[in-house]
């Protein structure tokens, strides 16, 4: 993906192009501030409706997870379909430690969350070392295999409670603050994960990842230590997913192998990433927000499991066929071509290369 901004003969002089850039940067900042404000103020507006609050909580859990997944899969182009391993690891970590160490129910359990992230991150090292020996499409198969291994382990090992699952310490928070508190915990995780994703994207490390996505052999030829870079991204992307699993487990109060290690979780991350636009920062957030809210609403409306699966699968197919690059890159492309066509000196001819390495890629 080459940024040909400078090759357009009619390109505006540096200063004017700079104005456009700073203007769009201002717009991005404005969007970030508004989104954050909505995120913080949302529970106040929805105080009465606990159903909506729980949908919002699940949406945040997925926003954090997809953003984290995107740090590895979106930037490196390696499709990982086994992140439910890290989600489940986080969930089991919080349940086991809270029970074994007799942590009293309440805020103090939240201090176990970093441990969930640590467990997921440490686990990601050996898994990544094995899986990353293979190239792209075999990698997908290995991550799926890992997922099934961990589901089997959680079902059959004795300390995980088997199919009966595990109970977490009972939390006697009042009904109307329960969802709200968990909402804010999840919101903090989303903000931290987005910052992590943003930092990675802007860094030399992120550039190396995206070079691997575009052409791994050439990246290696240019001196990128591909295995090390990929492994680091894999571990980084596992940590927030583990924490999300921990929050999710404590919110529900009990976990089972089938729900903590859920194959639909794996596919949901990929689906949300693809719908929003992988490799961008806002894409995973948007995809998770739209899809998880929709899914929660669907399950609340149609109690039949089957119908919900059909709608979900059909939607997935439609997105893959109609918007293979996702909402954010497609919209960004439209905006850019509109700007380029607009008369005036501010026409900056950014190419349509959606998630380009160089230039102003969609955020």
């Amino acid at each position, binding site marked *: 993906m080459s940024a040909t901004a400078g090759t357009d003969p009619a390109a505006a002089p540096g200063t004017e192009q700079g104005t456009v850039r700073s203007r769009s940067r201002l717009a991005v900042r404005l969007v970030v501030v508004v989104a954050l404000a909505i995120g913080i103020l949302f529970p106040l507006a929805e105080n009465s409706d606990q159903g909506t609050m729980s949908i919002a909580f699940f949406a945040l859990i997925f926003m954090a997870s997809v953003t984290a997944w995107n740090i590895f899969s979106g930037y490196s182009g390696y*499709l990982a*379909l086994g992140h439910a391993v890290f989600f489940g690891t986080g969930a089991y970590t919080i349940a086991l430690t809270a029970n074994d160490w007799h942590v009293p129910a309440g805020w103090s359990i939240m201090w176990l969350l970093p441990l969930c992230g640590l467990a997921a991150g440490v686990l990601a090292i050996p898994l990544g070392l*094995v899986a990353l*020996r*293979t190239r*792209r*499409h*075999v990698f*997908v*198969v*290995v991550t*799926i*295999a890992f997922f*099934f*291994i961990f589901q*089997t382990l959680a*079902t*059959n090992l004795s300390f995980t409670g088997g199919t009966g699952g595990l109970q977490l310490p009972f939390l006697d928070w009042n009904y109307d603050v329960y969802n709200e508190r968990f909402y804010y915990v999840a919101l903090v995780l989303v903000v931290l994960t987005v910052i992590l994703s943003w930092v990675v994207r802007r860094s030399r490390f992120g550039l190396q990842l995206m070079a691997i996505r575009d052409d791994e052999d050439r990246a290696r030829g240019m001196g990128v230590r591909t295995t090390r870079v990929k492994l680091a991204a894999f571990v980084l992307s596992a940590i927030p997913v583990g924490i999300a699993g921990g929050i999710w487990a404590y919110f529900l109060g009990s976990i089972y192998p089938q729900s903590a290690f859920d*194959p*639909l979780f794996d*596919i949901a991350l*990929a*689906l949300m990433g*693809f719908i929003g636009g992988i490799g961008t920062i806002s894409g995973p957030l948007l995809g998770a927000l739209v899809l998880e809210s929709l899914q929660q609403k669907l399950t609340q409306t149609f109690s*039949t*499991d*089957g*119908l*919900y*699966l*059909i*709608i*979900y*699968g*059909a939607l*997935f*197919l439609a997105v*893959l*066929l109609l918007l*293979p690059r996702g909402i954010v890159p497609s919209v960004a492309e439209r905006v850019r071509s509109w700007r380029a066509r607009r008369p005036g000196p501010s026409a900056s001819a950014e190419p349509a290369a959606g998630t380009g390495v160089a230039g102003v890629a969609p955020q």
Partner: protein
Amino acid sequence: MSFDSLIQAILDGVLTGGVYALMAAGLSLIFGVMDIINIAQGAMVILGAYLSYALSVHLGIDLFLGLLITVPVMFVLGMFLEWGFIRRLREGDRTSMSILITYAFAIIIEGVLTVLFGTDYDQLSASYLNSSVHILNFYLPDIYLFGFALAVVLLGGLYVMFFRTKFGRGLRASLQNRTAADLVGINVNRTRMLATGIGVGVTAAGGMVYGATSAFNPDSGYDLISRLLAIVILGGMGSIGGAMASAVLLLIAADIVATAWEPTWSILVFYAAIILVLSFRPIGLFGARAVRSQ
């Protein structure tokens, strides 16, 4: 573990290995021809089982006779999958995208089956399902013998089709070099569509035998796909003979683990195989691209 139970485990492994080879053949074929990893293979096996179930329960059609209906139905489904979706993917990231597309297919199949049949476990029934041949100290269930015979016949048929017919030559040509195949007058799109159809059609037979030998519900496919992937990876993606050999090997190993240790852990044999093979010999035990090189 006594010697007799070891022999019984090996016999069971060989026979169930035939059934698994039948289920995995389509996966191997489709990958070999098009570099498409069909994650929906497990769901398609279950779909085949439910089709046979519907025919035998509602219309009273014999399971083996019913294959004359279920195989063509699944054949058409496979052609639709290729024509409607796989064909429209861009060349560059086709394999990754195909995993997502077929995953979506699996979810839809599971959803449709859940709506139609519910989530309770079902099992196929026929007079020959409960009888068995008794040799020395060992029992060989009839259905496994029939299933094994069916596997040998169908996989042998696939092999002949691949390596002894003009269609097979066109198929192999179109995956060695698409452009060159186009130039010598092979209709590559049609060839691929037919190959996907055949792969999915054979799966209907695998589904019937699976449904006759184990209880299933709409989400049994998830459990199956990991085993099938292990078989195909170990056998070498695209090799039909390799799928047969590795299915028998893995099933024997799984049966021995189940007898000597505990049935719940036998599944780990498959996962261990995937990881060991991919780590140390990524092309599979029996050489990858067998379809292409022969």
